[in-house]
């Protein structure tokens, strides 16, 4: 079947009238067809255009494609046919009160009243705090016991609720309920001054500051017809790789700690800080806040900075390699990592896993390779997938990416980098325009989508963190796994609560 979707490019501004606006039945059939053939969902969301309620979706195969339609108040669920729509349909139901009939597990995503102030799909009144009005899924039987964890966790981490249904030590089912971190980010985006946009983007998820900032900046750049110079692209690429390095190294340290092998846990914990400090070296903030702005970057990579960066990297690289070897060659570590929390390629595909979690389960997708932005066209990122889908695979993907990121940064800082810095974010967006941006953050595909109205105001700002796809992967990994392996599995995904909750 020829599909009616329009092929688009990452970060391309498109006149909204050119995005096919289909009858709902055609929209549904086409979207299902593409996903059935292996397509994945980048964005699927609702928005209000004047008095009309509409849907729009961006799908990916080896291309990106988009289409929209008028949204019915109730419609036959797409999830009922194909699982990858699952979270998206729940989100639309929560945000706009639109009912997907036959959705197999229609429950709230973040727990907030819908934007249209229409009847609540879940029957919530929102007078009680989360989890308020919700019955968790229960496995029945004499021997079954439940374990409830959170929202406040034992460590210094973000809040979320985990409900385990166990038989003995074995987890039969894990249900993850988030929403505690909901700050109303998408609504803020379409209401605030231009000067606040970069600040909001930086704070969607602080550990993915660069990933989200790049998506925001590229979207604004498309809608203002501004192109950052080559130097800015190089600096942003370095920043995204530094973010990946710091987080992957932190994760490997935490994984080591969770199998009680303390030397790498401490060494990596310290080295993570060294990589965060390299972000501070460039822009004054350990998380890269304040670096990326529409139009470029706010800080140059002066020769002094480049020299220090080179020296530090040279000093850190052998240490990183030695500790990686220490961790991965320890038989006790291998014994705990291997075969723990497996997610099969088929399950990963149905759940639409992205990033390292997807690559560990045999899905090679990497935005840097498939839809490159910034300087990635020149860098060239090799395919990196594993097939076992266990904790070991998720750790090994990070191992490879740590070395890859060091190599990328090293190659980019050998020659002088010149850029004209930008200071103030003040801009007029082109009216009635569509843009979608994707970047490979350290957790996977980060995507922002912006629609402007006829006056150039933001009509809809849609944010998707990779964790939106991947939390269900963690739930799947825990099936038939010992509950004592939960911390290890959780760390092997290390997903974002606030990125999901928005």
């Amino acid at each position: 079947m020829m599909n009616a979707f329009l092929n688009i490019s990452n970060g391309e501004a498109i006149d909204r009238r050119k995005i096919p606006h289909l009858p709902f039945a055609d929209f549904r059939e086409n979207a299902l067809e593409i996903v059935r053939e292996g397509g994945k969902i980048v964005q699927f969301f609702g928005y209000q255009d004047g008095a009309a309620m509409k849907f729009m979706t961006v799908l990916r195969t080896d291309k990106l494609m988009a289409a929209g339609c008028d949204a019915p108040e109730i419609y036959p669920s797409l999830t009922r046919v194909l699982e990858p729509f699952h979270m998206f349909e729940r989100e639309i139901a929560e945000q706009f009160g639109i009912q997907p009939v036959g959705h197999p597990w229609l429950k709230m995503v973040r727990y907030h009243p819908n934007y249209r102030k229409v009847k609540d799909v879940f029957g919530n009144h929102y007078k009680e705090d989360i989890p308020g009005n919700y019955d968790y899924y229960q496995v029945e039987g004499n021997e079954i016991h439940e374990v409830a964890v959170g929202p406040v966790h034992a460590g210094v981490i973000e809040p979320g609720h985990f409900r385990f249904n166990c038989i003995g030590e074995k987890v039969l089912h894990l249900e993850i309920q988030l929403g505690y971190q909901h700050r109303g980010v998408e609504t803020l985006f379409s209401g605030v001054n231009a000067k606040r946009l970069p600040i909001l983007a930086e704070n969607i998820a602080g550990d993915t500051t660069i990933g989200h900032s790049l998506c925001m900046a590229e979207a604004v750049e498309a809608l203002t017809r501004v192109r950052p110079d080559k130097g800015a692209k190089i600096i942003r690429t370095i920043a995204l790789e530094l973010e990946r390095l710091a987080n992957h190294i932190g994760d490997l340290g935490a994984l080591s700690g969770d199998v009680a092998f303390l030397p790498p846990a401490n060494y990596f914990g310290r080295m993570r800080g060294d990589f965060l400090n390299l972000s501070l070296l460039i822009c004054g903030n350990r998380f890269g806040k304040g670096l990326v702005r529409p139009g470029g970057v706010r800080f140059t990579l002066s020769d002094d900075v480049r020299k220090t960066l080179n020296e530090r990297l040279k000093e850190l690289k052998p240490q990183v390699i030695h500790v990686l070897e220490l961790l991965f060659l320890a038989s006790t570590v291998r014994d705990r990592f291997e075969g723990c929390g497996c997610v099969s390629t088929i399950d990963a595909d149905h759940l639409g896993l992205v990033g390292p979690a997807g690559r560990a389960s045999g899905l090679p997708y990497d935005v840097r390779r498939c839809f490159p932005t910034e300087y990635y066209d020149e860098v060239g990122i090799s395919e990196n997938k594993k097939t076992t889908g266990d904790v070991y695979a998720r750790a090994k993907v990070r191992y490879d990416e740590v070395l890859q990121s060091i190599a990328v940064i090293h190659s980019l800082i050998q020659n002088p980098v010149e850029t004209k810095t930008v200071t103030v974010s003040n801009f007029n967006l082109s009216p009635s325009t569509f843009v979608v941006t994707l970047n490979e953050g350290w957790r996977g595909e980060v995507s922002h989508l912006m629609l402007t109205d006829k006056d150039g105001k933001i009509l809809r700002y849609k944010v998707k963190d990779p964790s939106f796809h991947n939390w269900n992967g963690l739930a799947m990994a825990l099936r038939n796994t010992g509950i004592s392996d939960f911390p290890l599995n959780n760390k092997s995904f290390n997903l974002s609560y606030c990125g999901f909750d928005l």
Partner: protein
Amino acid sequence: MFSVLKNRFEQGYRTCSYPKEKPAIFERYRGKPVVQPDAPRELAEICADACPQAAINVDLKKIDMGRCIFCGTCEMLSNKKFVRFTGDFEIATAQKEHLVTAGDLPDLAEHSKQHFKKLFGRSLQLRQVSAAGCNACEADLNVLATPFFDLARFGINFVASPRHSDGIVVTGPVSRNMKTALLQTFEAIPEPKVVIAVGSCAITGGPFYGSPEITGGLDKILPVDLFIPGCPPHPLTNLHALLSFFK
């Protein structure tokens, strides 16, 4: 075993000697802002207009560090002639109004409650609650447990249960969905207890000010003893605050 020893040798001793010596931070770090009192008003207005956080008071010529996210826009715009961000990371205060500053902060150690020093000076156990924090504040609190900072050498630890703790460290703008859990955690801590607000989100709502989903200032719902500004506060800012206030 050999590789464990070899790595141990390579890693060496890494713990910083703070507070005896201040570790060097790279030059671009933006710590305490200092306002030039004789800067022209027009310049101050330009900066205030561009400030994404509405943190600049033109009449007083002061910056509210509780709102400020230390992005440095005002410094760049005024070419350091109105605001200059120094490398001084010792910026926590005991009173919220002290955060509104032209660069002169009261000595934190003197403003701490003396009975806190007596009670918690030798042992301070803290429970951290992230209430819609973006994970940057949380990460830079977590990092205090790594060998470089080694918070435990001062008798200060982050503990797993409020029942084991002497106080609560809150990050994030306190979302509506997290408010009850936060208050319940606070209630579970035995008296006497301390409340510490970390990061501009916890102090004023930070980048999310104006959202109906957040509380926008922890002091609206809990009695805050210590304010640690930043987005996020540098780990040394946190360390300084804890040591000055409690030791």
